[in-house]
């Protein structure tokens, strides 16, 4: 069990509203295993149950059914909190405080004694590139700077596990890259990162594994390469004889022919060579061959739509 940074077993969370009789099932029988040292992408549209799951992991709310373990201990175990950190989505800090003051405040919550506290705070300000803004009130910070302060407060305790909720939400593209680099840097240090997001373009590049959550249920889980494999190659040819259409279709792709113009969508499994051979043997003329890689976005949309159709 301690191989996992996070493990949930049939985790279910139902909210029974004060006024409505029927409870809302935010998370349904979720089984999650996050290995130590990996970047785990926890994906899903808004309202999929990501934040609910995270709150259970942090012990802020309690599971209705099932179990959740963090760093080998039940979620909410007080000793866990020395070894994990959490960055909520769009956090607002006590914005009258300066960057240095807020980090000192959080360091005191960790019980880091002086003089280590000051040293650690300075170090982290340096690390997130806010040394020069250390004595400015947070309310003067840009969104990106606030997010970096948020990350810095996550690192105060040198955690084994970081849980980041939408870490790039609302940031400009340059700040995205900053955060992404920091995430990679943290993995290099052997930390586990659990990143929830509904923004895909950045995360897909750094996650080792992702889980896709929809309506409280896990609909997909796996290594990124595996999930993204199975793109296709598009071939366009002219002056193609109608007789080859049938053999080409038998190779497993989708093919259409109009006025001698052939368009083939062939799975990316090497069979495209044989399609080309067939075209040429029938006297056709290949105009273009273009590979289409599957993106996480495609996967995401396919998965969610597929899930919602059911």
């Amino acid at each position, binding site marked *: 069990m301690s191989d996992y940074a996070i493990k949930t077993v049939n985790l279910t969370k139902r*909210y029974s509203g004060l006024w409505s009789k029927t409870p809302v099932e935010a998370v349904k029988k979720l089984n999650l295993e996050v290995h130590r040292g990996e970047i785990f992408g926890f994906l899903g549209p808004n309202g999929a149950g990501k934040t609910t799951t995270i*709150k259970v992991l*942090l*012990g*802020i*709310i*309690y599971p209705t059914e099932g179990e959740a373990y963090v760093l080998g201990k039940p979620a909410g175990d*007080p*000793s866990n*909190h*020395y070894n*994990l*950190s*959490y*960055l*909520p*989505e*769009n*956090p*607002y*800090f*006590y914005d*009258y*405080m300066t960057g240095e003051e807020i980090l000192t*405040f*959080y360091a*005191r*919550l*960790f*019980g880091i004694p002086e003089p280590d506290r000051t040293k650690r705070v300075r170090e982290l300000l340096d690390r997130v590139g806010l040394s020069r803004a250390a004595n400015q009130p947070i309310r003067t910070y840009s969104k990106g700077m606030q997010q970096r302060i*948020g990350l810095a*407060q996550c690192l105060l*305790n040198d955690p084994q596990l970081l*849980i980041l909720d939408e870490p790039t939400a609302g940031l400009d593209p340059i700040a995205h890259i900053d955060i992404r680099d920091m995430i990679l840097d943290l993995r290099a240090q052997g930390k586990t990162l659990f990143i929830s997001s509904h923004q895909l373009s950045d995360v897909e590049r750094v996650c080792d594994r992702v889980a896709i959550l929809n309506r409280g249920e896990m609909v997909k889980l796996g290594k990124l390469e595996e999930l993204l494999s199975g793109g296709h190659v598009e071939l366009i040819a002219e002056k193609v004889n109608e007789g080859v259409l049938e053999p080409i279709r038998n190779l497993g792709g989708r093919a259409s022919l109009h006025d001698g113009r052939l368009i083939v969508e062939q799975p990316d499994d090497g069979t495209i060579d044989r399609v080309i051979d067939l075209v040429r043997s029938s006297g056709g003329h290949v105009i273009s061959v273009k590979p289409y890689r599957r993106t996480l976005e495609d996967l995401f949309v396919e998965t969610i739509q597929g899930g919602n159709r059911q």
Partner: protein
Amino acid sequence: MNATFALAGATFGEAIRKRILLVILLAALVILLISPAFEPFAGRGQRTLVISFGFGIIQLAGTFIAIIMCTGLIPTEIERRTIYTILSKPVQRYQFVLGKLLGAIATLGFVYLTMGLMFLLITRWTLGEFDPKIVQGLIMFFFQSSLLAAVTLFFSTFVSPLVNYFLSGGVFLMGNLMSTFLDTIQRNPEVTPLTRIPVQILTVLLPNFANFNIQNPIINPEQVLTDEVAYLVQTIAYAVIYMVLLLVASILIFNQREM
């Protein structure tokens, strides 16, 4: 404990920067400053005017500041999600609630200190004397406001700020009236036990805010009080115990609370 004090400090730092609270405090200070100008309303006694009016303003400001500050303490943390960064640290929920209450009390201490100094200055200036009894009165009102803060904080663990305004205000009003009410009932032989007993129970259960209003003998210094020291000590002990009671109850609810 360090975490608790850090939370108290942050709460204090935030509260004293809250515009609405500063406006109330400033208004109270200005009214205190000009209170001697109301003398024509005061009948014969300038002492009555300056002391009663001053205490009135201070209590009113203290009450509003306590309620307005404490309705928001916990809900705001949840709303802006700072509470998640705090509770995901090695901070117990009771530490969070305790830190909030201590921060609120520290803020009230600051507020009372400011208003109290102004008040002492005004009384020194208009009455030509420094009356240490005024400090006594101020301390009692400080405890009254602190108790009210604990009441409001308690309600804030399970009701919305808007509801809390009315709830806390209502409890404050009731807690101020119950003693007089019971006193009146006890003096009236026609009241049946059916009426008297519920009033007695309510008086004993509700936080009693009337206990802290000791300004009358300060305004009318001829009065001789029985067991004054015992009264003050017991009333302060009462405030502290009731605050601990509310704190424990708040923690009890907050521990179960899902955010």
